[in-house]
């Protein structure tokens, strides 16, 4: 991808590309506006998902294939599912009250928001000469263990960030679980429904899992050299698993089950173990160049599993028995 970015940089941008960029930006702004100001929440969420896809395209234009993958999978996909699911539950529970704020307040807010945008744009336009870390990263890539600079940054240069981040997911999960009703504790995650599984979905769900697993593992593997990595792989896996659960082929896991908790913890645990062994042998989180690739791949595989499980459980939400509806 480094090569590809360089080639991109080499060829002078003709008139088409800026045009395309402009159109794309216009679409992004339009969908964002629609998502934010739409009358009904449902429409807003749909617009938001579209918006997410467009953003992913923008990432492609910015030579950030990894981000594009993540944005598409998480930003648009999972977030959208989360919002839709919540919307359904809210409809079920209580009214969705529309905003009833004075027009003047809205105008004032609009202006101040525009002010913020302008301020940021001003800062952006007047930025000094770009001083990125491309050079630094590329020079270190040889001993970083992976060819994909982004993965190198994530899993090696700034591994401490990534470790904490994988734990942040865990925090969210525990937090979500802790919102269950006392009597529901230890039951299956999410709202236990008995949706009639329709054939298409089911058939899909039967084919997809192996495919999903394959794609996931591939993404992790690819992540070492090409775009891809634990998070992308994890999201794909999570999406698959969700699909299966929604299709009713597999009951959602029990919040109480040790297996679930083990899977959720595994990734961060392995990561932490590697980090600490480094610390004992001298330097914290150091991956000796010789074994760097193996270690990174190992960490990523476990991370992928944990991330997949965590993401799925996050989307499913806290256990909730149908009784109290």
């Amino acid at each position, binding site marked *: 991808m480094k090569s590809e970015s360089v080639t991109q940089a080499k060829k002078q941008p003709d008139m088409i590309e800026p045009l395309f960029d402009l159109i794309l930006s216009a679409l992004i702004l339009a969908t964002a506006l629609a998502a934010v100001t739409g009358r009904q929440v449902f429409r807003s969420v749909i617009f938001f998902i579209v918006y997410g896809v467009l*953003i992913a395209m923008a990432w492609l234009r910015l030579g950030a294939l990894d981000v594009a993958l993540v944005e598409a999978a998480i930003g648009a996909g999972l977030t959208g599912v989360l919002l839709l699911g919540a919307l359904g539950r809210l409809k079920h529970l209580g009214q969705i009250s529309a905003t009833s704020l004075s027009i003047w307040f809205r105008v004032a807010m609009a202006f101040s928001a525009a002010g913020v945008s302008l301020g*940021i744009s001003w800062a952006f336009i007047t930025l000094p000469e770009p001083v990125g870390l491309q050079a630094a990263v590329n020079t270190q890539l040889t001993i970083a263990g992976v060819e994909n600079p982004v993965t190198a940054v994530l899993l090696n240069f700034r591994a401490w960030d990534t470790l904490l981040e994988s734990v942040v997911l865990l925090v969210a999960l525990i937090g979500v679980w802790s919102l269950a009703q006392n009597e529901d504790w230890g039951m299956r995650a999410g709202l236990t429904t008995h949706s009639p599984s329709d054939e298409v979905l089911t058939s899909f769900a039967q084919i997809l899992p192996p495919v999903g697993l394959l794609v996931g593992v591939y993404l992790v593997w690819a992540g070492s050299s090409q775009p891809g990595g634990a998070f992308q792989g994890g999201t794909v896996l999570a999406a698959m698993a969700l699909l299966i659960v929604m299709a009713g082929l597999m009951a959602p896991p029990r919040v109480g089950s040790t297996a679930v908790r083990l899977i959720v913890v595994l990734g961060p645990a392995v990561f932490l173990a590697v980090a600490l062994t480094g610390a004992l042998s001298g330097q914290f989180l150091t991956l000796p160049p010789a074994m760097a690739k193996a270690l990174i791949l190992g960490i990523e595989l476990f991370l992928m599993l944990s991330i997949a499980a965590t993401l799925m459980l996050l989307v499913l939400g806290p256990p909730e028995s149908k009784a109290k509806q």
Partner: protein
Amino acid sequence: MITSAMIFGLCGAAVIGIGLYGFVIHRNLLRRVLAFNVIGSGIFLLFGAMGYRSPILGADPVPQALIITGIVVALSATALAVALVVAYARATGQSTLPEDGAEHKTEDKADER
């Protein structure tokens, strides 16, 4: 000459504004969560664009990595927020919070209790 970086950077800045607007004008919690995500992706877009300004060096991988981290963090926050919204709706039947500064109300309630 306008580069993609320039275009998408400004676009990101604009998106941030839109998101902020949505965040403050809505009382509906779900919409606020949505707006939060809009702001977030706007920031990421701007961040990415800023890392893509140099035609010689190409895309800066560090912001990309940070953005991936950020997206995951944002998702975690969204998940918890959504769960809170649902739990709140379950507990009160409301999808909007009482007006800000309404903590006095809750006090009074507490006094009666």
